[in-house]
């Protein structure tokens, strides 16, 4: 019967299961000192994401998130939150315009990495999606995470300026 458990559901990789079930870094911060918020939503899927970021001396010192979304969305938010603490908010990176979440060992590089340009891109969704084995039909929801994150990062930069 274990074969029918969600842990063996091919839609959910082990990392997605672990991150969704533990949701490290989830929830609004307990204090409001120095935190900025960025929020985005998708009316089609009713996905809502709110990021809380805090920085000191140009580096992200706290990243928390609130998500109404599917297990993949929550897992990706948890992955991003864990990966960005300690990063400079305006560090040079291989993605034009902003820092990139470092890839986990063995994770494939995203398509076009290093060649993108435009507004600050804070999250390399393709790399994270590949790392967590997020199904293709879920990728659209991940943009909500990115949009919210970008808004928070822009606020952080504005606060710093």
């Amino acid at each position, binding site marked *: *019967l274990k074969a029918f458990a969600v842990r063996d559901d091919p839609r959910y990789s082990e990392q997605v299961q672990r991150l969704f079930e533990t949701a490290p870094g989830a929830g609004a911060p307990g204090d409001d000192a120095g935190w900025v918020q960025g929020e985005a939503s998708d009316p*089609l899927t009713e996905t809502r*994401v*709110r990021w809380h970021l805090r920085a000191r001396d140009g580096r992200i010192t706290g990243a928390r998130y*609130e998500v109404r979304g599917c297990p993949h969305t929550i897992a990706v938010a948890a992955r991003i939150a864990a990966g960005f603490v300690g990063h400079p908010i305006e560090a040079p990176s291989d993605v034009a315009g902003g820092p990139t979440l470092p890839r986990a060992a063995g994770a494939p590089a995203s398509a076009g990495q290093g060649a993108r340009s435009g507004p600050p891109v804070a999250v390399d969704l393709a790399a994270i999606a590949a790392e967590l084995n997020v199904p293709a039909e879920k990728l659209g929801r991940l943009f909500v995470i990115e949009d919210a994150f970008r808004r928070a990062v822009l606020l952080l930069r504005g606060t710093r300026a």
Partner: protein
Amino acid sequence: VARPFLYLDNAATTAVDPRVLAAMTDCLAAEPGNPSATHAAGRAVRARVERAREQVASLIGAEDPSAIVWTSGATEADNLAVLGAARGAAERGRHVVTSKTEHRAVLDACARLEREGWSVSYLRPDSSGRVAPDAVVAALRPDTTLVAIMLVNNETGVVQDCAAIGRLCRERGIVFHVDAAQAAGRVPLHVGELHADLVALSAHKIHGPAGVGALYVRRYPRPTLVPLQFGGGQEGGLRSGTVAVHQVVGMGEAFRLAGESGQEPQRLAGLRDRLWAALATLGGVHLNGHAGHRAPHVLNVSFEGVDGEALLYELDDVAVASGAACSSATGEPSYVLRALGRSDALAQASLRFAFGRFSTGDDADEVARRVVTAVRRLRALAPS
């Protein structure tokens, strides 16, 4: 016996009752015989088939056991009813009336008719899921030959006023088909009181085996049905193919047991209400479907502030159905709940709990505890 799942998905299918299993096993172990054969072995097997036919006919108040036509399930019965009756009356008219919340077995058959040149009126129920008899009348046209309305909705448990709709159809000489797959053994089901000409029935919804069902076809007057299957002329030419004797014996026994269930509908309603009372403490929950006119075994609830797929994940060892797109064959949230006016978000975040003969109060309490815990966790993760 420890159970690996908390099973509250009895509107999808039910556990085979041990008495049904015994009847089927006895049948499978018996001497072979084709019920269509005229020799003694065939007659012996045919007696089993006819006994089962009587058992099914008895539960639904059919005027004669010969009104029962065996099928492979309610889907085939619905298909035969809708396609067969429409095609059988094609010379009189090519208009069918049904509702947006019918089972796919009816809706897809109607879609097929549309591709063949019929026109179909799909009635939208009110926000409680009920189709007003007046709305049916308003949709009728001179060329309407068939009305198909289900008795108990498989997602919400809403009970339609089929008796009133049937009477209105009977007065106008229009064939009335009722999908009663969810109704048998749960709500009063008497084909005469429903003024039904055709009624689709299922075995596995009431603790019988999957793979067998029946279509009640009124005897006098008998609606003209064009068969969908050809071969041996069995079942009065309406459903060719050797009857699966052990299957129909199982269905007969399941229907016999349902007829002897006494206070079972009240017990199921008690479990349903107990679960609803526990879930309602969460706040931000919505009962889907009419609060009064509904079957005792089904409870459909939408939860505000949570994602349907995440909720299903959290309830992995609880067997319930969901309106979430991820659990739907079409990839869309429940069309039934959307027809009731629920937003996509609430349709997605809905669960259908369905009790059966082997469900207990402990099941209701434990499922309530799991759902409350899961909803609270997901709401805590979500932006306020």
